[in-house]
């Protein structure tokens, strides 16, 4: 039984499945390397040179160098891995979450304090299903 990809109808969501795993592997393994303090130092000293150690696509390199958090997901990044770059930068998970949905930090924090993003209107991409 192959996996039904009906989750592709969920808006603003990049499920790390076989399709993304095939293209994202090296990008994510670069992120994993930042668990090592020596590697964090080398990356910070010269980011582009450090990235050259990994067989990344030009688009993946650019997304990392620009800290395009949403863009990284679109070129195969897995959030549990890409967040390692943010930790290396001294950012928090909430900082990155806000940037991925283009919300100012304060506004995102306010939304979470008010109970988080409502599922209402956020279950299906337009034209792909019925809201309950």
């Amino acid at each position, binding site marked *: 039984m192959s996996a039904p990809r009906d989750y592709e109808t*969920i808006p603003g969501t990049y499920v790390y499945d076989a399709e993304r*795993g095939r293209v994202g592997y090296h990008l994510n393994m670069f992120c994993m390397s930042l*668990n090592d303090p020596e590697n964090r130092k080398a990356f910070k000293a010269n980011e582009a040179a450090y990235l050259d150690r990994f067989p990344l696509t030009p688009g993946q390199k650019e997304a990392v160098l620009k800290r395009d958090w949403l863009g990284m*997901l679109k070129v195969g990044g897995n959030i*549990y*891995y890409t967040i390692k770059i943010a930790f290396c930068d001294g950012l928090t998970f909430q900082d990155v*979450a806000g940037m991925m949905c283009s919300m100012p930090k304060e506004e995102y924090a306010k939304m*979470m304090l008010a109970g*988080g*993003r409502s599922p209402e209107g956020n279950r299906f991409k337009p034209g792909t299903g019925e809201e309950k």
Partner: protein
Amino acid sequence: MARIVGGIACSHVPAIGAALDKGNAGNPYWKPYFDGTIPAREWLAKIKPDVAILIYNDHANALSLQMIPTFLMGTAEFFPVADEGFGPRPVPPVYGHSKLAWHLVESLILDEFDMTIANEMPVDHGLTVPLSVTCGQLDKWPFKVIPLCVNVIQYPPPTGVRCFKLGQAIRRAVQDFPEDLRVVVYGTGGMSHQLQGERAGLVNQEFDAMFLDGMANDPQKLTRLTHTEYMRESGSEGIEMVMWLAMRGALGGKVREAYRFYHVPTSNTASGLLCLEPTE
């Protein structure tokens, strides 16, 4: 004879660990959360477990995408605390119960659950945050811990029904262990949360309440949730709740809910905490 004396469901949000580690647990943001965890800590102290089987997911620390076991059990006597990219958490190291872990591995594989075996591995916040929440800040954890990792990072994770059946197999295996041990089982992760994409920050309180209700009274209903339903309703990372079902399967048919606590927000997520006691 070993027996399962309790089950705990607990979110493992890293920010909860960071709040404790940095001494921020008493500030206005965190106090309501930590106040709500006190009864669970008191309950667990009364239960006095010898060993915990702690079901969680690793977050690119012990495991990477290089090899992705669906179910993995740590059989070591000792598990160091991982450096997750910002230094290891300042918490005690984790001591395992190698003899019980090997018994579980053998029993589970012969019972058709093909466990990967880890003789050495660091443990990350997925395991240490639930310990901190339910035991507090200590110099030494009060019981031994057997880590059981479930893949929820690379789609697809195991289904809810598969996790529930794994829990049932864990129950059979524990009951077969000849030593007199009191065992608790943790199911960690959840509740509703989405950490990624333009929909980050999703919290579905209605879904979470339904899930908390079902854990005690109708876990069979919860095992019928599909992966897409979890992700659509409770956020892409809400799918971690399949690990709660593994814990629930280990408790047997009837349980009593000893404590329930639900809080929004803990960083980007809703947090749930549930203490269950088997009654049969």
